[in-house]
């Protein structure tokens, strides 16, 4: 990369690596690369990392000093061998947008003044990027939603959002991999199993992958759920 990011202590047991001030695909590319390097080659020094839109938080292993870790992170960025191209997978996600699985689509219709068909058409025609996973296990932070679909979050969050719910929250769209509380507008449901505790290496959605949605009927959803 052409510019060394800002590397500094975030607390007495963590370091943050900052890649610019905004959300960009370029910063995202660096974050995917350097996250992989940290996970592959520095696991003895770190407890875990949290990549995000424009930063990586590195939590230090017990006994590792801030100064030691600052030095090894700087070394990673100075090593040109660490610059590699990424290949991003595209994951196609089937979504049933029928009203039974879309309790908030009317709310989205009200805010956007689009018909249901237009909302679905706009939601399936964009290509999305998974910036990172965070918040709860396997929850993807997805960028790329058509701005005209923007709808504010619910006034008060639901205590239980079913697993597989596809939703719009403000400027973002997302998928709930497991049942959890949530305040986004639910517009559909996928049957894809997006998070499995016993098989986390093979989760379909990973940081850096591309996502496309396509519309399926209720029958197709039910058949897929039963097969």
């Amino acid at each position, binding site marked *: 990369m052409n510019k060394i990011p800002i590397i500094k*202590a*975030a*607390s*007495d*047991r*963590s370091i*943050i690596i900052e890649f610019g001030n*905004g*959300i960009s695909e370029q910063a995202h590319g660096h974050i995917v690369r350097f*996250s992989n390097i940290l*996970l592959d080659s520095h*696991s003895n020094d770190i*407890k*875990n*990392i*949290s*990549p*995000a*839109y*424009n*930063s*990586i*938080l590195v*939590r230090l*292993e*017990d*006994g590792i*000093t*801030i100064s030691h870790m600052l030095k090894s992170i700087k070394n990673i960025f100075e090593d040109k061998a660490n610059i590699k191209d990424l290949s991003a997978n595209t994951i196609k996600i089937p979504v049933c947008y029928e009203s039974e699985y879309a309790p908030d689509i009317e709310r989205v219709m009200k805010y956007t003044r689009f018909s249901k068909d237009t909302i679905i058409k706009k939601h399936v025609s964009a290509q999305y990027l998974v910036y*990172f*996973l*965070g*918040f*709860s*296990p*396997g*929850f993807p*932070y997805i960028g790329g939603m058509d701005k005209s679909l923007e709808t504010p979050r619910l006034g008060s969050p639901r205590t239980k959002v079913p697993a597989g719910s596809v939703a719009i929250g403000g400027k973002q769209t997302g998928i709930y991999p*497991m049942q*959890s509380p949530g305040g986004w507008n639910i517009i559909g449901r996928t049957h894809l199993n997006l998070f499995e*505790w016993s098989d*986390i290496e093979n*989760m379909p959605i990973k*940081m850096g992958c591309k996502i496309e949605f396509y519309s399926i009927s209720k029958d197709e959803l039910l058949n897929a759920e039963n097969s």
Partner: protein
Amino acid sequence: MSLTILKSGFQDLIQDLGRTGYSHIGISQAGAADSVSLRIANLLLGNNINEAGIEITLFGGSYYFNKDAIISLSGSVFRTTINNKTIPFLEPISIKKGQTLNIGPTNDGARCYLVIKGSLEVPNLLGSRSTHLMSNAGGYYGRNLTKDDEIKFSNDNNKTFSNDIKFRVDKDRSILRVTKGLQSNLFNDSSMKLFYNNEFKVSHNSNRMGLRVTGPKIYNKTSEDIITEGLPLGAIQVTGNGDSIISFVDHQTTGGYPKIANIIAADLHKVGQLKPGDKFIFKLVSLEEAENLYFEQERALKI
């Protein structure tokens, strides 16, 4: 070999030192709220410091042993008896097959730890036995222990006890030391003064994910959220309403509120002992001092 819950406490959870290595896929570390006390309980029995124990919050229950065991209790002192005889904390205790350990309330802090010499036979999920309640995972079926739950244990540890732990728990929780938070520059001088010169009180709306503390309302210069980023353990986030939240062991991996300060690692065990209604002030220290205090604590916990 097992113990059975005859009556559960307010919140009995299986915890070890946490699930590391998976934060990048959104998995919270979890682990003992007062990890220092869990380590001490394990050291007293010659266990590995990362063995899982039962974390008991506010008041405990009744635990029936169907096999002889050696146990230890640590953390805040809860009224604890076997056959109506009071049991001391911080030493190995022998409990016989057929006896029941009764753990009552406490006048001390929020939590105590019950550890068995050997190990609890609870499934290892991604390297840890810790329970994470929000994702219903880890520990005992991802939940609080309740009546009739049976926890198997093995007595596979023949090591001798260690009674020479140098660490002395400081029970004064009226001052929590912090370092500057990542967004402390978003707060002006008068906000900073409000934050450091006033008492805060732990709200009832607190749990292992975060402690909501009530005190002066703190506003930042822009009153905007930040771009979501990784959340350090002990980060003090300030919401748009001016409320302060201490992110704690079960915290979400990322967050979007500005962070005004961060509890130092050496004081995190005190946060694990705070109860609703407890009052304290935040005291700013340098990063160097915080790191020195952390390494001092680590040395004192080694035998």
